[in-house]
């Protein structure tokens, strides 16, 4: 059984016990424990079930690479699935529950899959469920969904808060082990602004566990001394519990700081996402130990050798009383020695190498440990727990020589440098055959804007396994990075590490090397996704020769641990199956983040009310106080209608429509874009921007204009007013304000950079209010200040002056067909002006109206709306707006495109009015059906509805649409489809269904 040792545990505060629950069971641990060590201390080996075969699983590692120990944590607003037990610090009251089992962790029905594994090989789903097609959607997928999935999805709103922080540094060092610390001192002494990140709560990495010696000091003391020196450097910032998550172009890096995961239920921030710009990045990210592939290597109790050591040294936890060590290198002997020194038994060290010699081996032998060279594990005995191992010759096929009882197996297949951050932005790797590892190729680093390297790597991450090399390399990398960032101050000497000599590692990718199928199909590569040696071999056999294809076919490395333990072993097996060299097979792509980071951290402050900016006009507050039922228009919220007590939204729209036609309506039009275009070449420029002529517009007058993209498609429309000899004011649609401004700047900066034109977006400088209806003039005359008579201010003209004491620009323009004035006042007075109009207008029956009424009024007049009648495929000719395409101008944007054969096709769908025979409202977007079917068997179409409303004025549905040869088919009845499968008949009519002569607006 796994238990707590009396005298070990350097990270524990045994003075502070903590209670927590696992699957409802009350357990106890100490401050300093991880959830993994605390569970092991309570003999809770079984922590979850595997993904595909539901095999019992326990932790295999002690750090970020852990594939098995994932739990559901917390409850309510703090519930989160897939929390890794090895990186979860224990806290009082922690609640954890195992995942992926039913009905219970101890007894799981899905475990039957393991007996069916012969029938669930790699690619099983692809092969099995591809035919017949409909079964996938209706039978297979729902069934598989039920059995798949690791954690539960949270149901409640996240109770925690998060933030981002931007910072710029000269040198970012990722990894707070001895290499990172040495690098930080070296870079700091040179005078660089340095940031050093450590993903755990503790500095020093493996060296402090393995008893390295630096500058004559035990690593623990050297780390403490170095930290003190760094804390004194004002230019160095240290952050623990902060993981370097990703490296991106131009020295951009993301770091994930877990502020209160170890002490939740507080009001402080949970996670912070650091958005870092670094001139140089040093990755000192250490290495991950590789498992060995032998049958039953996933049985709870089989662990990485270094993890077994970590649990003893750091947490005072023994995984078992009797531990068999199995290895292909010297490092694992440290585990055996550590266990012996802790008073535990190591019945045998199984060394796959035929020869093993060196100080560590001598030490182990001197302690009386039996060492068996050239041997392998044939299979692990036990189901939910290791009970023993069967030993065989590594060179053979697995004939058992003897069985040894044990309750823990410590395995080591060598070390793989953590090259993830080096590789994120293009750093290349090389294969080191002597050390059996991929390591960064210093000749091919990630490069910046000038081709300069901006990532370097140090220590074990750089392929240096020995203390002396590690600290020396870290020191040199820190110095070089500081220098590359422009900091050259002199510093002290590099630290000196001391090492014991170690013998060479021998590559072992399968144990025993000739293992038969039965053994191979129980030798796990990817614990989380249940991928075995036999699966990768099958993939190779079936032609998935590329490592990327084999990965996707087998799902090797595709789980939440992204193959930290499995990738190298998997690709080595693939290489052997293909009879290729490992470097020729290559690795899969390393992508950020290094380990999963919370969605909360990615969102930062953008949650709840701050999720998205909501734009407000000066009148928005009044509208919201007066019944506005808002609709989103971009980031604006515009009143759709102003709903009164007892009214439905629909009622309100009908009332507003009628009142505006009969009395007086008020519209907040402030969101419409307003662009000032000024300069000696402004007229020439606008003649290019608009399809019609703007240069000839007299000062004081307005003209409706159309804008096409280069490809001839209608992109915006609006009224242009000439303000002075060299200045125009262009109104755009609400959605066009920013992008038409950008469009103009684009052409001015990139094409016509020598034209003298300046553009300014003054949209928000003004509150713009439309005063609309037969009583509009009466209201303005009552307020007084300027002459708004038909004689002085005729249709399509504008004047500047005062209205009721407000400085105002009054545009006599109409989007409703009514007598209408659009009045712009400074935004700071917008609300006051609106209230003044509302109060003074009472006697004239004034009512505010919303966007739906705006739409209905314009549709009754056959006016088009960008986004309704246009969708990026519509040209002005389609909308019968040929009159706005200047014949006089030599050129304008879109002119050339209109000559293309398809644009000039006389049979394009064109705008018409549509009147249903039964008076009903046509469904929006409905298609007009035509005879016959197309090559896909779909009904042919001959048009579609672009705008459709109920008109309270006409007391029936009105609509506009684009119909093939539409204007030539007036009076013809066509059919439109409805979602219920029936059709509705509509007559093709003139789009203008109200006041065709324009008598109402021209008064």
């Amino acid at each position: 059984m796994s238990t707590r040792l009396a005298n070990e545990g350097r990270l524990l505060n045994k003075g502070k016990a903590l209670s927590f629950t696992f699957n409802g069971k009350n357990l106890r641990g100490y401050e300093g424990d991880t959830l993994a060590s605390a569970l092991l201390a309570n003999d809770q080996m079984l922590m979850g079930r595997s993904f595909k075969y539901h095999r019992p699983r326990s932790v295999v590692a002690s750090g970020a690479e852990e594939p098995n120990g994932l739990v559901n944590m917390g409850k309510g607003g703090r519930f989160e699935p897939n929390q890794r037990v090895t990186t979860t610090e224990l806290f009082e009251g922690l609640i954890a529950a195992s995942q992926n089992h039913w009905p219970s962790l101890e007894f799981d029905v899905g475990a039957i899959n393991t007996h069916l594994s012969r029938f669930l090989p790699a690619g099983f789903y692809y092969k099995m469920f591809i035919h017949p097609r409909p079964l996938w959607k209706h039978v297979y997928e729902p069934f598989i969904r039920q059995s798949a999935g690791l954690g539960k999805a949270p149901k409640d709103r996240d109770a925690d808060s998060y933030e981002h922080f931007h910072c710029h540094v000269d040198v970012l060092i990722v990894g707070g082990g001895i290499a990172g610390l040495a690098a930080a001192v070296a870079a700091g002494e040179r005078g660089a602004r340095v940031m050093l990140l450590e993903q755990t709560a503790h500095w020093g990495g493996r060296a402090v566990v393995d008893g390295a010696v630096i500058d004559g000091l035990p690593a623990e003391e050297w780390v403490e001394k170095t930290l003190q020196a760094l804390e004194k450097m004002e230019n160095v910032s240290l952050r623990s519990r902060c993981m370097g998550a990703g490296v991106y172009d131009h020295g951009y890096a993301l770091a994930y700081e877990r502020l209160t995961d170890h002490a939740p239920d507080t009001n402080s921030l949970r996670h912070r996402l650091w958005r870092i710009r670094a001139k140089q990045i040093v990755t000192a990210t250490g290495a991950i130990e590789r498992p060995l592939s032998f049958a039953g290597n996933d049985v709870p109790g089989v662990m990485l050798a270094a993890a077994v050591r970590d649990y003893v040294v750091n947490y005072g936890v023994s995984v078992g009383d009797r531990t068999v060590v199995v290895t292909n290198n010297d490092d694992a002997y440290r585990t055996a020695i550590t266990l012996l020194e802790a008073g535990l038994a190591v019945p045998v060290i199984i060394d796959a190498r035929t020869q093993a010699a060196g100080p560590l081996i001598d030490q182990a032998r001197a302690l009386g440990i039996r060492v068996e060279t050239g041997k392998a594990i044939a299979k692990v005995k036990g189901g939910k727990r290791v009970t023993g191992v069967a030993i065989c010759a590594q060179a053979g096929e697995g004939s058992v020589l003897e069985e040894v009882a044990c309750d823990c197996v410590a395995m080591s297949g060598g070390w793989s440098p953590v090259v993830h951050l080096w590789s994120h932005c293009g750093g290349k790797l090389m294969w080191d055959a002597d050390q059996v590892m991929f390591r960064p190729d210093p000749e091919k680093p990630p490069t910046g804007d000038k081709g300069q390297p901006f990532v370097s790597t140090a220590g074990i991450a750089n392929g240096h396994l020995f203390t002396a090399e590690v600290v020396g390399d870290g020191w040199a990398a820190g110095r070089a990075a500081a220098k590359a960032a422009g900091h050259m101050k002199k510093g002290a000497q590099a630290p000196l590490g001391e090492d014991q000599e170690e013998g060479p590692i021998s590559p072992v990718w399968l144990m025993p090397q000739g293992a038969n199928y039965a053994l191979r199909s129980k030798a796990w590569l990817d614990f989380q996704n249940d991928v075995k040696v036999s699966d990768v071999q099958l993939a190779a056999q079936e032609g998935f020769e590329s490592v990327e294809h084999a990965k996707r076919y087998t799902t090797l490395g595709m789980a939440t641990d992204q193959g930290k333990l499995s990738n190298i072993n998997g690709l080595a097996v693939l290489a052997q199956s293909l009879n290729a060299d490992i470097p020729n097979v290559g690795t899969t792509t390393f992508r950020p983040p290094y380990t999963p980071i919370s969605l909360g951290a990615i969102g930062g402050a953008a949650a709840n009310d701050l999720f998205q900016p909501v734009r407000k006009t000066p009148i928005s507050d009044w509208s919201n106080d007066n019944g506005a039922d808002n609709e989103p228009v971009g980031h604006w919220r515009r009143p759709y209608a102003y709903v009164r007590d007892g009214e439905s939204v629909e009622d309100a729209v009908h009332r507003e429509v009628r009142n505006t036609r009969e009395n007086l309506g008020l519209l907040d039009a402030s969101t419409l874009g307003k662009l000032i275009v000024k300069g000696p070449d402004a007229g020439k420029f606008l003649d290019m921007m608009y399809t019609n002529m703007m240069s000839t517009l007299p000062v004081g007058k307005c003209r409706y204009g159309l804008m096409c993209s280069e490809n001839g498609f209608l992109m915006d429309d609006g009224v242009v007013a000439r303000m002075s000899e060299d200045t125009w004011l262009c109104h755009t649609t609400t959605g066009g304000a920013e992008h038409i401004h950008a469009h103009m700047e684009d052409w001015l900066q990139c094409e016509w950079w020598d034209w003298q034109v300046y553009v300014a977006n003054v949209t928000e400088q003004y509150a713009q209010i439309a005063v609309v209806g037969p009583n509009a003039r009466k209201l303005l005359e009552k307020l007084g200040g300027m002459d708004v008579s038909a004689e002085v201010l005729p249709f399509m003209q504008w004047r500047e002056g005062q209205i009721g004491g407000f400085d105002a620009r009054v545009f006599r323009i109409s989007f409703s067909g009514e007598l209408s004035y659009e009045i712009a006042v400074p935004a700071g007075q917008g609300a006051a002006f609106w209230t003044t109009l509302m109060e003074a207008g009472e006697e004239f029956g004034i009512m505010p109206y919303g966007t739906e009424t705006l739409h209905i009024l314009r549709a009754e007049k056959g006016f088009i709306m960008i986004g309704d009648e246009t969708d990026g495929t519509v040209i002005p000719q389609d909308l019968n707006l040929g009159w706005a395409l200047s014949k006089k101008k030599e050129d304008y944007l879109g002119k050339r495109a209109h000559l293309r054969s398809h644009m000039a096709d006389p049979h394009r769908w064109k705008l018409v009015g549509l009147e249903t025979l039964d008076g009903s409202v046509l469904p929006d977007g409905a298609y007009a059906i035509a005879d016959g079917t197309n090559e896909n068997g779909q009904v042919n179409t001959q048009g579609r509805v672009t705008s459709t409303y109920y008109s309270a004025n006409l007391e029936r549905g009105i609509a506009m649409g684009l119909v093939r040869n539409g204007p030539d088919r007036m009076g013809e009845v066509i059919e439109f489809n409805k979602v219920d499968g029936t059709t509705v008949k509509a007559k093709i009519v003139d789009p203008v269904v109200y006041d065709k002569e324009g008598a109402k607006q021209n008064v």
Partner: protein
Amino acid sequence: MSDAVSALQGRVATGDVTIADAGLQGMITLRCDLSAKSLKAACKTMGLAIPERGQISRSGDKALCWMSPDELLMLVPYADVAGSLASVEQGMKGQHYLAENVSDARALIHIDGPFARDVIAKLAPVDLHPDSFKPGMVRRTHLGQIAAAFWMRDDGAFELICFRSVAAYAFDLLAASAKAGPVSDVRAS
């Protein structure tokens, strides 16, 4: 004429770092050739020097912010905008330029307190380290999801402008950032 109101109408969020509506501020956007002698002269009559790239030049209650290679933002008291526009017009006569009153199109927010730098650095991708960002500098950037510009006063407080329509978002975002506290330099644990 009614009294103009600022978008935030005097809102204040008090704390270690206080976020406050700065009220009405005259602002003129000025686009022209920044090396033009006439511009230099026109600004000189108002006591202002043309700022260097990324800088703000101040004189009493007026200032000029560098916004782009051909754009300045002139800050004057709200009541002086018309007069200042007339001075610019006078000085730039015959030149190609654009000067528009944008006082009402913007909101001005003060951020004042010991960790004001942190409050902004949580929201804007700008190097706000004391060695890098100093009084007299102006940065046109973004704040959360909106466009913004800010500069630092000699007393260490920040002044930030954004569009009027998103003033409430900017204020709430800054207030939340201030409330969450400083990003302390947590050392070894």
